[in-house]
């Protein structure tokens, strides 16, 4: 089977379905089947105790997405509270460097500073609709935790955020933000005391509290329906950008690009373009010190198939199936798994994935700051670095007028401690701390 065939034969139906069922849960060629499978990836590899809750969530979400009242309330909150739609900005200086016209989708301008707000507002509104009063969330750097605490404050829900103890120490500011917003932050000491262990602990909470509690999962990964559910709330990124691009340029971009941690911002951008066979789709994973070292978080480029956190997907594990710790300067990308839809898009060749090293990402961050006056999140800087590699290839194929749409998933305020150390911006730190020392580096 060639992917192109599948894509082109299903384009019409999928697009029609997208508009008619624009009001329901999407069922395009690239979406999961009813059991949550994207080809060979996805599913529900979880304790039986959680099956009922995931079923309940699947039904509630499907009904909500078909309910005009739910969707218009979510739309309104998105517009009035979160700042949607985010602007599309043609970055002229960056375009010059990349050799093509680079369009930045400005998710950094949204409330709480990243695309994550789209996901949590959707999930929190769904929680209210289900009559639950408490939400739990996991967080790495604290971005999803802050977004969850924000949505909980907005909708009047109790909120508990699990965060690896290593991360609570590194991210004291975000811990303070979550507490100020009224959330309880629980440091997780088990395992490697980072994001994957925070997810384990949130799942343990959920097994015991599932009647009154909703788990706001932070990315498009985990057991069905989370990958599809999170996609349904972040796909506005691509839907908006596609319309903005068509309106302004009268044509689709030649390529779209995003960073990939768990995959929520990337799938949010990609979804609108998957049925456009002429749009190339590129995801950039965290290459850490390099995919040829054992210090990276590039699960698709440098990992293998396996089961982690409820889903069959690409993961970092040793030959005994024990999860291996990931490494990235960006906490938001520092996860040894990835959403199953990305694993499927990679396996079919519909999307391409490459790794960007810490150094390449930080160079791109500095470049964007100086040339455009935008300090991106380090996660997003991976997408910028990717665009700088992709641009010349696109230019060679399509000329300098080619359009490259890049998701700027978040802003870099949260990353200033890391940037300060990396670039030696604080004279004292620069002399006493080797820049970028992996063991002391306070990740994004």
């Amino acid at each position, binding site marked *: 089977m060639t992917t192109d065939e599948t894509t082109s034969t299903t384009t019409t139906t999928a697009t029609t379905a997208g508009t008619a069922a624009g009001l329901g849960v999407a069922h395009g060629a690239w979406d999961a089947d009813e059991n949550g499978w994207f080809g060979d990836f996805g599913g529900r*590899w979880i304790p039986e*105790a959680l099956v009922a809750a995931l079923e309940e969530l699947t039904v509630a979400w499907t009904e909500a997405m078909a309910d005009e009242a739910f969707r218009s309330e979510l739309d309104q909150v998105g517009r009035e509270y979160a700042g949607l739609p985010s602007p599309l900005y043609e970055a002229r200086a960056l375009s010059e460097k990349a050799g093509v016209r680079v369009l930045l989708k400005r998710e950094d301008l949204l409330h709480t500073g990243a695309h994550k707000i789209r996901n949590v507002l959707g999930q929190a509104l769904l929680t209210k609709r289900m009559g639950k009063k408490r939400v739990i969330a996991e967080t790495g750097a604290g971005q999803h935790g802050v977004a969850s605490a924000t949505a909980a404050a907005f909708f009047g829900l109790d909120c508990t955020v699990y965060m690896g103890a290593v991360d609570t120490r590194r991210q004291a500011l975000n811990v303070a933000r979550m507490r100020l917003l009224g959330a309880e932050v629980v440091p997780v000491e088990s395992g490697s005391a980072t994001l994957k262990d925070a997810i*384990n602990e949130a799942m*343990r909470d959920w097994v015991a509290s599932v009647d009154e509690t909703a788990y706001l999962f932070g990315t498009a990964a985990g057991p069905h329906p989370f990958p599809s559910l999170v996609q349904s709330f972040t796909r506005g990124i691509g839907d908006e950008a596609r319309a903005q691009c068509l309106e302004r340029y009268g044509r689709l971009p030649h390529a779209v690009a995003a960073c990939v941690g768990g995959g929520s911002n990337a799938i949010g951008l990609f979804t609108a373009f998957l049925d456009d066979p002429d749009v190339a789709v590129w995801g950039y994973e965290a290459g850490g010190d390099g995919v040829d070292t054992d210090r990276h978080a590039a699960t698709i480029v440098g990992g293998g198939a396996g*089961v982690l*956190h409820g889903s069959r997907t690409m993961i970092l594990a040793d030959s*005994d*199936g*024990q999860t291996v710790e990931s490494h990235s300067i960006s906490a938001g990308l520092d996860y040894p798994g990835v959403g199953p839809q990305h694993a499927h898009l990679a396996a079919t060749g519909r999307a391409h994935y490459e790794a960007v090293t810490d150094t390449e990402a930080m160079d791109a961050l500095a470049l964007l700051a100086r040339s455009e006056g935008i300090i991106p999140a380090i996660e997003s800087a991976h997408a910028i670095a990717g665009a700088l590699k992709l641009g010349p290839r696109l230019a060679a194929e399509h000329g300098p007028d080619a359009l490259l749409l890049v998701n700027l998933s978040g802003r870099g305020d949260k990353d200033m401690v890391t940037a300060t150390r990396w670039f030696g911006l604080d004279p004292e730190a620069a002399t006493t701390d080797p820049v970028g020392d992996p063991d002391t580096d306070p990740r994004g």
Partner: protein
Amino acid sequence: MSAVTTGRTMADAFATAHAEDRAVLLGFLPAGFPDVETSVRAMTAMVEAGVDAIEVGLPYTDPVLDGPVIQAAAQQALDGGCRTAEVLQIVQEVAATGAPTLVMTYWNPVLAHGVERFADGLVAGGGAGLITPDLTPDHGADWIAAADERGLDKVFLVAPSSTDARVATTAQACRGFVYAAAVMGVTGARTTTSSLAGPLVARTRAATDTPVGVGLGVSNGDQAAEVASYADAVIVGSAFVRCLLDAPDTESGLAALRDTAADLAEGVRRRA
């Protein structure tokens, strides 16, 4: 054609217990905890003190269904280098006691090892089969086929939140026994047994003739007797792990383990 297991399976344990009109006592310890050698000694001591069958836990980096006690033990085992090869070796040594010996494992280590290869390893060591806390029959086709070919026990879990329909399909997929996870929550000793257990066992019995074991939370003979009054097997994990975790040295840990095992073994014979 694959070899069929010659090791004892859970059917043997239930036959003995049935003849004595009592419940089966199934005891869990993580492999390699506190180290490989001591874990074999500990499981052997449990059998000698009256535990009918052993669940050998395969230590895993991301044990989402385990509470702090078993997490800590599994971490210690991993830090000590206990991997799949060691686990299969331990199974062989424990099965040599004559007690049916199951492996309790999260699924990714089995996938990574190869489902067929794992099943062959169990057969070679005289293991009874697998208990799979994060694998439901929905995703278990490979394992079910491998177990059926070899006559291995395949134990899936039912939970208080399971619908009757799921209880039925899960129970029908089991051989050996059906594992009724009696509380909504992770593993760990609790001071009272769960009120959710009785109804769950009754719902499971309505769906199958396969024996039903109850786990999660039992820590003493009185609780064991209470559970034995309505279940075919009483499953104990954290309470055994605690004995070794809390002990100042190995010998006193093993002594505590024997006392706990004897207390529980007396409980499953009382059927309060």
